[in-house]
């Protein structure tokens, strides 16, 4: 292990001596930014230093630099220090617009439970909750609620049996989101038969 003496010649710019950084200060800021950006969780200066094989001081300097840069230009993003690490986040003032976007973004993303329920409804429609339970073997109430909210399914009137349960089928939005012109385009098991051979 190398002894890291305090070689504070110029913390600001010179990436410190014996490690012989090959990166210019600008490059260091850039790669630090990239690491903070890709990290799933706040990333500490220590970890960044290890990855880049640079000393802590240069990394801290680079982060300071980066923060100033973000504040200097009127960026929509900020470098936040949180839980001992750094992360990039949107600026607080913009939350209203950000929230609006998050609410309206169209999404076909589904949990596995919802996807299963949707699959049953798509292939068995019109179908009632008890029938879905029968096929899936699990309660599907919350999945159905999600699917209704995402407007992927619609109610299709009551079934004329005991209890007159509500029937469900897929919606126009379902067709759009799954890129189908009509339900006949839904692939059947036979369509993929030869793929499974």
């Amino acid at each position, binding site marked *: 292990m190398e002894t890291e003496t305090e070689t504070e010649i110029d913390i600001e710019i010179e990436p410190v001596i014996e490690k012989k950084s090959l990166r210019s200060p600008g490059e260091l800021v850039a790669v630090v930014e990239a690491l903070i950006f890709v990290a799933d969780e706040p990333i500490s200066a220590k970890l960044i230093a290890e990855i880049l094989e640079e000393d802590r001081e240069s990394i801290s300097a680079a982060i300071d630099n980066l923060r100033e840069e973000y504040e200097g230009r009127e960026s929509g993003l900020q470098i936040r220090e949180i839980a001992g690490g750094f992360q990039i986040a949107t600026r607080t003032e913009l939350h209203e617009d950000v929230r609006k976007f998050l609410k309206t973004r169209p999404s076909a993303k589904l949990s596995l439970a919802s996807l299963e329920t949707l699959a049953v409804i798509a292939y068995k429609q019109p179908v009632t909750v008890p029938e879905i339970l029968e*096929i899936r073997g699990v309660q599907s109430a919350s999945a159905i609620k999600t699917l209704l909210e995402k407007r992927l399914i619609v109610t299709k009137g009551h079934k004329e049996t005991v209890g007159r349960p509500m029937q469900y089928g897929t919606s126009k939005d379902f067709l759009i989101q*799954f890129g189908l012109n009509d339900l006949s385009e839904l692939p059947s098991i036979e369509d993929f038969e030869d793929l499974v051979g």
Partner: protein
Amino acid sequence: MEEILEQYSFDFNGAAPTIVAESRDELRITLGEFAGPLDLLLYLIRKEQANIFDIPIAKITNQYVLYIRLMKKLDFAVAADFIVMAATLIEIKSKMLLPREPSEESDEEIDDPRQELVDRLLEYEQYKSAAQMLYERTTVEQAIFQRGKIETDENNAEINASVFDLLNVFQKIVARHKDEVQMEIHREEISLADMMKNLKRRLFEFKELSVLAFFEEMHTKRELVTAFVAVLEIARAEGVRLTQSSTFADIILRTS
């Protein structure tokens, strides 16, 4: 066999077979895979530095057949498509040997038996180049990274589903509850074809399958017999292996 022993190397971008006869008794083999018969054919033409518009069909055919024999000899499964191409080549070769009718001689545009093959090769080669282009693009793209997760990404693991997923999921559910569904909705006995289909699908999905567990899913004696025949059929025809760790142990079906 003498042929094999001459310095014979198949080397294709590192991704395909290299078969090198190093000495009279040693055959060094590095096998990859040609993407198909046309791929192999193109390779052989290249190797001979032959003009694609004037393929020395006899020579190429011999080498093609030799390659396939070699593969078979080494116990590599040779896909049917490769055999079909061998037949095509042999057919062209024999057509080329036929004496041309005198009346045709004056004709400028004599049908070249190789023409169709050449056209296919040319078209194929375009797509092969396109595939290469795609390959290069992925290499570039893999150097670019997107942001890590942030709070606003939904926390639960969500699936961005396609129609294919939908069908896949549905099939899984049906498989999971096949018996119940059958008893209540259909009531009819499952045919051997369906049983085999079901078995194949699951084998494909899970790569291996407990024969015992599969039999236990059967409800009637008839179904059980059908299942049994299906297992035998598949073991025979589909390139799957049956393994058993000890006598009376469970038998496992594996795709090979």
